């Protein structure tokens, strides 16, 4: 069956030729992608590398970094919401803070010396708390006085 053999050989050559075109032709794209990542990563700051951008926590990175630098690793902190209904809508805020503040752990507000307040103003927490960091977009980090 020489015709079939020839067809198979042509097919193999065609496959390899296509792979050559794809591989060699797209290598510069791949290197460009890597270079782009390399440049972006090189220009990123410590906090940009450490903290993700979270839609429900706008402007939160400086506050979380302040909180990390304030609280010892065995600290416990509470999470409160400016209004009760927000807790249900933004329940994932607790989870994000758990992940990003680990190994510090969450506790009931009355048992925690530190607190994050979501969708709050400086007056929300009252006089018992000293605000240590304010995102300006509703996220506060405070310490009980």
């Amino acid at each position, binding site marked *: 069956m020489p015709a079939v053999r020839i067809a198979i050989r042509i097919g193999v050559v065609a496959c390899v030729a296509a792979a050559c075109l794809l591989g*060699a032709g797209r290598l510069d794209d791949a290197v460009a992608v*890597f270079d782009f*990542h*390399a440049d972006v990563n090189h220009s990123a700051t410590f906090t940009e590398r450490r903290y993700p951008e979270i839609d429900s926590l706008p402007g939160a990175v400086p506050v979380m970094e302040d909180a990390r*630098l304030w609280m010892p690793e065995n600290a416990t902190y509470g999470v409160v919401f400016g209004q009760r209904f927000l807790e249900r809508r933004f329940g994932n805020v607790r989870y994000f803070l758990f*992940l990003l503040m*680990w190994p510090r752990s969450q506790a009931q507000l009355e048992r925690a010396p530190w607190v994050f307040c979501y969708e709050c103003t400086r007056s929300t927490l009252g006089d018992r708390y000293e605000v240590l960091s304010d995102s300006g977009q509703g996220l506060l980090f405070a310490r009980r006085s």
Partner: protein
Amino acid sequence: MTTRAILGLVIFNVFVLAVGAGALWGTRGWRWWTDFVRLAGLAYLLGLSALMILTTFELVVGIPIGFLTILLTGAGLIVLGVIVGRRRGFTAPGLRPPGWRVPGMSLFSALFVAGIVVYFEGLFRAQRLAGVGREWDSWANWLPKARELYVTGRLEPEFLLLVTSQSPGYPPGPATIQAAAFHAMGSADTVTLHLQYWFLAIGFVLAVVGLLAKKVHGAILFPLLLAFLVAPTVLDWIVTVYADLPLAYLVAVAALVLILWVEEGKAWQLAAATVLLSAGMLTKREGIAFGACVLLAGFVASFADRRRLWRPLVAAGLIAFALALPWRIWFTAHGLPGDGPELGYVGAFSHLDVVWPALKLNVDTLLDADLWRYVPVLAAAAIVLAGLAGVWRLSLYAGVFVLAAVGTGTWVFWTNPVAFNDEWPIHRYTGITVLVLAVLAPLLLARAWSAAQDSRAAAEPPGSDLLFRRSRVAWLVVLVGVGSHFGAMLVGYSGSGLPGGLPSSQGVSSCVAAPVADARVRVVVGYADSYPEAMALREQAHAAGLVDAQASQDGCGRVRVFVDDLPSLATSQALVAAAQAAGLRPTVERDPDD
């Protein structure tokens, strides 16, 4: 992010290679070290798999995973391999066979090998300083587990219940390797951890090249490998700290070595496939599904030899599952929810309307040129060509695997409708199938080519002698690829901070700016690792007369205590003298607010 962390990772990966060498020695042995060099990639993946399996087992039985545990586990595996190898009569290997010379390579192959080298140099630059900010699964799942393991050595059920981005029973394999990497780096450095994925990718490519080097001409192997590596989805995933590509590496190499066992019947090949598949099962829950697909393909491909091959194949499947079973027993015994389908194994049958969309999604994704740049199409053509050429066992194996993987994928998306919510789950699932096809395609094409020849002599590829004749001179082309990164540095290429110098480490020094004449400066009293320490330092500064001293983040993970907004270097001297008189050690930096 430091040179020390990178060095730690290098040492860790050499350790993994040594562990794998132990495993390979116990199962296969090697007469010549040149043989071992060829199989080093496979040894690396075996070492990684063995460590993953054993550290997971240690977790289950309550042994904390610390630096010493990992070291002893690896050392134990090496010793075990050596003892088993000796009992099997393997003698100490020689350096190289008599008359051995550096293998030649065709100029054509060398061009693609150089391309792969350039690819990995670029990948290194991209990953060296990568963060996890855009990697949801990294910071929401793998890294919390890895850090918990790094700090406590354990994964307690209470902790797993808190990490709710995946089910608590999700396999912990990647987290154990990440924790081991943290120990090697000396800290939970989530940035440098990206380089561990660079090592994994290199290990995978070396494993495939080593296994196929004697079976597939470089003119087929290297272009196909490069075509796969530059596929857009691979470029997306290869730089992220996820478990999808590591699982794909394990499954793909297991699939390759399993079909080699079906064809050649060497026991070490089946042993290697077993260990790799088991590690895949501990990497992601899909690992079990893909393990089943590989084994099913193996059963079908070996049907003609079923009396001889099916029994060991059944044993391999059972052993692979048994090695992954302790984790499943552990999380079940602790009452943790499993990682089964969302609709249950029976409940899905009341949602049969989802089957067709699930199948369509799987097939469409597999054939999506924007994701894979036709690699699956090339592999499908290779399957057909091999079938036409009479290489029925290999083409059947690849074909059955694809059908099984698509079928399993259909079941996965049918029983987990939430996976339809975004495009990533199907991309990640399909990527594993594509990777298996990518490693089988060169073998399929090589077999098809050989089968379509009249004589052995004609098995060489067509084309000019200059391009395809093997020659050691072709290695010079590869050397050019190796030197391309340094060449770019020499000509001042700006990527990743390389212009004319060594790569910067982006450590804390990047947050310190040297003072410049006529520019505003600040007097820095010191840096602290926490605000309480910084506040104490600030009090000292106040007492020393630096009443405007303040404390704030320095942008590199520390707190800076400083007096800023000083108009010039000269005006800072009085404050420096006052601080020094109080026993502080102030420095002057440029004030970037200027």
